[in-house]
C-alpha cells in the first residue's frame, strides 16, 4: 500500500519524538562519523517532508520498486532492522555501497523516509 505519510505537523512531531526516544534507548549509538555530523542541516519545510517523494527522487535508484524488492540495494519492506539502525544507515551510509545522507537530509526528512519504509507492505508476509 502506498501512503503519503507525515503531512500532518502534529503527527510528525510525535513521530520525531518517539523515534528520538527509541534512538536514545537503543544500544546502537551513532558512530563517530555520525557524531561528527552532529550539526543538523537546516530543517526542511513541511512540504519537503514527504517520504514517498524523497524515496522516488533519491533512494529508489538502488532500493527497487520503492524499496519493495531487492535491486542494487537490499529490499526494505519488512526489514527487521531497528529504527535506530535505519536512521544511522541513512545518516552515515555504508562506504562503497550507500551514500551518507546526514549532511543532505534534515532530521525530519530522514524520519519521513523511515516512516515510508515502515509503511511498505511485505509481500513475503
Amino acid at each position, binding site marked *: 500500500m502506498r501512503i503519503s505519510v507525515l503531512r500532518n505537523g502534529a503527527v510528525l512531531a510525535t513521530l520525531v519524538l518517539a523515534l528520538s526516544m527509541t534512538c536514545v534507548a537503543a544500544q546502537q549509538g551513532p558512530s563517530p*562519523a555520525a557524531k561528527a555530523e552532529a550539526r543538523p*542541516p*537546516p530543517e526542511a519545510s513541511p512540504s519537503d517532508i514527504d517520504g*514517498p*517523494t524523497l*524515496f*522516488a*527522487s*533519491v533512494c*529508489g*535508484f*538502488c532500493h*527497487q*520498486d*520503492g524499496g*519493495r*524488492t*531487492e*535491486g*542494487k*540495494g537490499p529490499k526494505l519492506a519488512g526489514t527487521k532492522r531497528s529504527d535506530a539502525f535505519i536512521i544511522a544507515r541513512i545518516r*552515515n*551510509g555504508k*562506504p*562503497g*555501497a550507500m*551514500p*551518507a*545522507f546526514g*549532511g*543532505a537530509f534534515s532530521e525530519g526528512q530522514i524520519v519521513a523516509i523511515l516512516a515510508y519504509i515502515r509503511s511498505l507492505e511485505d509481500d513475503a508476509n
Partner: protein
Amino acid sequence: MALRGKYLTGCAVLALAAMMTAPALAVDPSRLLTADQNANDWLTNHGSYKSYHYSPADQINAGNVKNLEVAWTHFPERSTRGIQSTPLAADGVLYYSGSYSRVYALDGATGKVLWTYAPELDEELISKQTHSPYNRGLALANGNVYVGTVDGRLIALDMKTGKPVFDTHLVDSKKLTVGFTGAPLAVKDTVIIGSQGGEWPWRGPIFGVDGKTGQKKWEFFTVAGTDEAKATWGGESWRTGGGGGWMAGAYDPETNTVWWGTANPAPLYDWAGADWQKSGPRPGANLYTSSVIGLDPDTGKLKFYHQELPHDAWDFDSAVGEFLSIDRGGQKLMVHPNKGGFIFVYDRANAKVQNVWQLVKNVNFVKGIDPKTGELIGRRDLSAGKADTPLCPAIAGGVSWNSGAYSPKTGLYYKIAQEWCMDITVIRTTPILEPMAQLNIGADFKLVAPPDGPARGHLDARDPVTGNKKWEINYKEPPLASILATGGNLLFVPDSEGVVHAYNAETGQELWSHNNGMGHNAGIISYMAGGKQYIAVPAGWGSLVSDEFAALWGEPFKSMAKNTGALFVYALKQ
C-alpha cells in the same frame, strides 16, 4: 682515471638497464594521431582517436592463443567498487587507474612498480556520493598522465616520476555532489574532460584545459549551452537539467572536431506523457542532453550536434563514449551507440544521420527510429503512475558505457547488447539542491525479464554501417567490460562472472579462456614490451550496473566481492 672510467661505465650500464626496464618516454600529442596503426602502445582510452578498441599486434593470434597464460599481476589498494578503468600503455610502460583516482605506472614486461600516485581527496564528500569513487581511465600527452577526480579536479602527473604537474579544480563538487569519473581526452595542447550529470540536477559541463599549464580554456554546458538550447527548456528547468558527458569521446583530426556523447536530462523519468513539449518537469526537447555534439577542441565552440533522443524520458542517454571513424564508399562516417539499444551512423562532417540500426531485441520505448532522419517513431511517453507493461530496455540500458571493438581486418563491429526490461511507476519529484544536490530519479522501478526470454546479454558481430549480423554469442549475464579486437584475428571479451574469453574474430569460435575469479567492469588492452605482446585487463566487480546482477541472477554475484580488484596481464608461454 680507472675508477672514473669504471664509474662511468657502471653509470652507462645502469642507464641502459633503466631504459630497458622503464623506457618511459614522453607522449607527444601528435603521436596520438596515428595510434590506430601502432601495435606497440595503447595511447588513448579507446585505443586511438578512431575508438576501435583494436590493436594491430598479431604476435598472439588465433593459432597460438591457446598458449596464453598470466605473465604478472598487480593488486591496487582501496578497490572500492572494483576496478572500472581501461589501462594505457606507452613505450613498454603500463598506466592504469583505480578507485579514488589512484594511478599506477608499471613496467609492462614484468609488472614492477615504477611509481604510484594517490591524490588526497575530499573523503567526506565521497561518503555522500552515489556514482563514486571509481575511475574509468587516463589520458597521455605532453609528457603527462591526466586523471580526473570525483571531487571535481583534473590532475596532471609527470609520466616518468608520477609527480603532480598541475591540479586544477573545475567543479564545485561540495555543492553539486558530482565530479569526474570518466577518462580525459588529449587533443593537441588541450585536455578535455566531461563531468558527471544525468540524474544530478545541474548543467553537466565539458571542460577544455591547457595540457601544460592546467589553466581552464573553455567550458561547454551540455544543458542550455547556447541560446538555442536554452529555449528548449521550459521555465527554469534548464538550471537543474542534468546532462554531462561522463565518458571520453573521440577526435576527428580532418575536421578538427571533438565528438562527445552527452548524458540524460533530470529527472530521469517524466510524468508529462505526450504533452512533454508544454508540461512536466522539463518541457521541451532539452538540448543538448542525450545528444552527440561536435566541439572545436581549441575553443569549446559547438560546431554541430544531433540529439539522438529529443526529450529523453527513459534515461537512454548518449554518454557512451565510443565514436568509430569508418570510411566506406567515399563516405566518412561516425558510428555511435545509444544506451537505448540503437546504433547511429553519422556523416563525420556534420553529424547528419546516415543510418540507424537496432542492436537490442527488446525495445519498446519507441516503435523504431527512422534510419534516414533519426526521428523517433512511436515514442512511449509515460504519465504519472504505474505503467501498464514493462519499459524496455531497463534503466541499465540496451548498451552500457563499456565499449565495443571494431576490426579493420574483419570489417566487423563487435558490440555487447543487454536484454532486460523493468516495471515502472512514475512519481512526481522536485529537484533537491540544498544543502547539496541529490539524485532526481522520478520513479520506482524493478528490473524484470524481457518478453522474449530471460534477462541476458549477447555479443554481436555486425557490419558497423548497415548492422548486418554475421554471428552472435549469448551470455547468461551481459558482459560489462570493454572488449578488444586484435590483428591476430582475435576478440577478447572479459565477462561478468570473471572469465576472459578469446574468440576467433571471423567466426566467433571460442579459442581460449581464463578465470580471473571476479567479474570485469573495466577495459582490456594489448601492448608490446621488449618486443613481446601482452594483453592486460583489470578485474574487480562493483559498478552501478553490476549491482543489479545479484537480484537477477543470484550466485556468483551474491557472493562476489565488490571492494577488491587486480590487474591481470597475459603473454604467450615461453
